[in-house]
């Protein structure tokens, strides 16, 4: 019975959201505000128990007193809410930015730059013709796109020609991205319709 009520509520809210496709109306507004309110409540409880309670209150109670400093930095972030005290929050923000820079910079350089650049290099000996052509197109695309974004030299002559090739690769990439975007949104709509026809109306098995 509980599951049935949940399915009915979900179905009615789904239809309420869909009414926006005709025009804005109170049913849509109600569903939207309900989503915001329930999400805020859910995340507040989740974050409090998974962070403040499990990661601070419990370990400090078990003797890990040094975690209090992390808790103090976290509380200092709330000073952003008042104009007179927001300068205090710069300290935990600075700590966070510095830690994130330490996490990210070496890893990004290794994985997103060096390893990616390495993968554009290939030895054609022994490879099938199709793979050689594929690698060559990849190499041309990477170089041409990088030259398009190189603005220290005026784009004229040979540089202009190569950067135009880069633009073509960029446009192909944007088209593929748009196509995938469409696919993603349609998939979400398919999911909602499958829920309505299968779980709610039981007209599709």
């Amino acid at each position: 019975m509980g599951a049935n009520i949940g399915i009915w509520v979900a179905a009615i809210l789904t239809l309420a959201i869909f009414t926006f496709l005709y025009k804005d109306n109170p049913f849509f507004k109600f569903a939207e505000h309900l989503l915001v309110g329930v999400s805020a409540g859910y995340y507040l409880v989740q974050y409090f128990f998974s962070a403040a309670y499990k990661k601070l209150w419990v370990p400090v109670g078990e003797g890990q007193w040094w975690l209090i400093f992390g808790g103090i930095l976290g509380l200092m972030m709330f000073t952003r809410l008042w104009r007179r005290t927001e300068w205090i929050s710069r300290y935990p923000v600075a700590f966070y930015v510095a830690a994130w820079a330490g996490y990210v910079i070496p890893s990004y350089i290794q994985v997103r730059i060096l390893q990616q650049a390495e993968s554009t290099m290939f030895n054609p000996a022994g490879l099938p013709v199709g793979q050689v052509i594929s690698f060559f197109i990849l190499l041309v695309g990477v170089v041409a796109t990088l030259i398009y974004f190189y603005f220290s030299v005026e784009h004229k002559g040979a540089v202009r020609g190569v950067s135009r090739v880069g633009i073509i690769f960029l446009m192909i990439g944007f088209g593929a991205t748009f196509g995938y975007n469409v696919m993603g949104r349609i998939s979400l709509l398919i999911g909602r319709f499958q829920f309505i026809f299968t779980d709610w109306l039981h007209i599709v098995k």
Partner: protein
Amino acid sequence: MTFYDRLMSIDRRVIFLCIGLAVAIPILVPIGFPVQVSQETKSFYNEMAALKPGDVILLSFDYEGDVMAEVDPMAVAVMKQAFSSNVKVVALTTYAGGTGIAERILNEAARQYGKIYGIDYVFLGYNPDWSGTILRLGESFKATYPTDQYGKSTGEIPLMKQVETYRNIALLVSISGSALSEYWAIWAGGRYGVKVISGNTAIQAILIYPYYQAHQILGFLGGLKGAAEYEVLLNKPGMGMRGMDAQSVAHGLMVVFIIIGNAGYFLARRAKRLGRERPAGI
């Protein structure tokens, strides 16, 4: 208003209705379009198939309810392949809203395959700060997750006794609705050398190709189509395959609308140009 202007100003509600019908009708009346399997999906499947009974995978549910329709079929299929091969699963989620989703999928798969919590699978739950979690798991699973989702000490769970760090993980599977698969590849894969495969939403999948091409991610599933392809390889039809008819029809309709829109635009422009070139009085 000319024909071309009418073509360019079709009410968007008509388009919404057409898309809605294009999705709804194939769900109600299946057509049965074939599903071609891509190389990246085959690579994903092969990595899972290479696992031996008793191997442990780390399955990260990196998504919430907003993209459930696209990636849930992937997670379900991964659990089916893992449990049918007697592979053990250590699961976690990097999203607060992912806990309910993960529990549902894990428990349903365990019930279907007769798997026991704590021995065949564990759900570590949600940890705030996903970046710290990914990095710290390389040092110690138990320090990162002192307790599982249900409050039990991870030191007392039988499966967790054989999992100390990433070294004990045969494969890392990230089912993601965001860029988190990339971070698993960057930190867990790049720094600790774990093999990573991922299932991504279609929007994210386009960004995973460079990692796949560079063998940083060894295989991935792209969107609902990727889930359908994976189900074909597993020979276990599910929500992925059921959505493919609707996906194909809706995409075909989108192409038709784009052609109509472009035709209207260029014909209107041409008509205006011809109208300007015509001498006055004619």
